[in-house]
């Protein structure tokens, strides 16, 4: 077992522990932190695969933005983010989960069964670096790159529109149009009385 394999198994163990913690925790904060551990392990694995730029992007975008966004929402919801344990309808969900796990296990066994020994080609030190990656991204991938900027723009505007709500009210205020009219009329009469 050489040093690269030791590195791989350490990172893989951390990644799997993080993923299990992310999916199976009771507390959403622990889930988000498990996701963070998994993302850092995957960034280290990218380094082992010669994808230095992607490792940096993984840390900046996932650990820096996505996990923080999860933590913001969990803290905004407060204690309500932890849903109480409820056993209703547990059997079909567990059955679906077991079926998925069995299918995934079969796929993993197939990967092991059909794996062949072939040499992994050597790569230069610039493979996966900013220079080589950027050249490919801005030549063959320029159209999807520009489209992804449009995607991010649309998704941010959509997220604001969805999270803000129709009346721009505080969270928890669900009012029909009639209720809003009634409350406005009540305010008007009370201000007339005081004025």
């Amino acid at each position: 077992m050489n040093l690269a394999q030791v590195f791989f198994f350490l990172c893989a163990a951390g990644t799997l522990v993080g993923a299990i913690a992310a999916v199976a925790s009771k507390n959403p904060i622990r889930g988000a932190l498990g996701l963070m551990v998994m993302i850092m392990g995957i960034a280290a694995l990218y380094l082992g695969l010669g994808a230095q730029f992607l490792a940096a992007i993984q840390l900046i975008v996932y650990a820096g933005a996505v996990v923080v966004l999860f933590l913001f929402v969990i803290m905004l919801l407060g204690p309500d983010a932890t849903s109480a344990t409820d056993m209703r309808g547990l059997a079909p969900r567990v059955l679906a989960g077991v079926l998925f796990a069995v299918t995934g296990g079969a796929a993993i066994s197939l990967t092991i069964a059909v794996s062949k020994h072939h040499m992994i080609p050597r790569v230069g030190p610039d493979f996966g670096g900013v220079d080589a990656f950027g050249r490919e991204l801005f030549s063959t991938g320029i159209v999807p790159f520009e489209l992804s900027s449009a995607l991010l723009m649309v998704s941010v505007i959509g997220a604001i529109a969805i999270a803000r709500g129709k009346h721009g009210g505080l969270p928890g205020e669900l009012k029909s149009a009639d209720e809003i009219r009634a409350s406005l009329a009540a305010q008007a009469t009370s201000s007339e009385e005081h004025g």
Partner: protein
Amino acid sequence: MNHIDYYLVLSGLLFTIGGTGFLVRRNVIFTLISIEVMLNAVNVALVAFNRARPENHSGQVFAFFMIAAAAAEAAIGLAIVLSLYRLKRTVRSDEADLLKN
């Protein structure tokens, strides 16, 4: 079994963990976290395939776009969680039944 296959097995394990969590959990936040785990599993496989065929960076560019798509998906998904919480005071996906009946 060579080096790349270890990465593929890890990718399969991560995808299985994420998919099982997606099916079993009912808290919408954990559902979104499971989706992120599955997307990361696919990215590991793509980068590993790119390492096996390093003539170009296609796999890494694909993984880059998937990271962008995952960020957009997380923003929209968490906005929907907030919207659901405002409407129903819950984060459980089985109580989001506005289209029922």
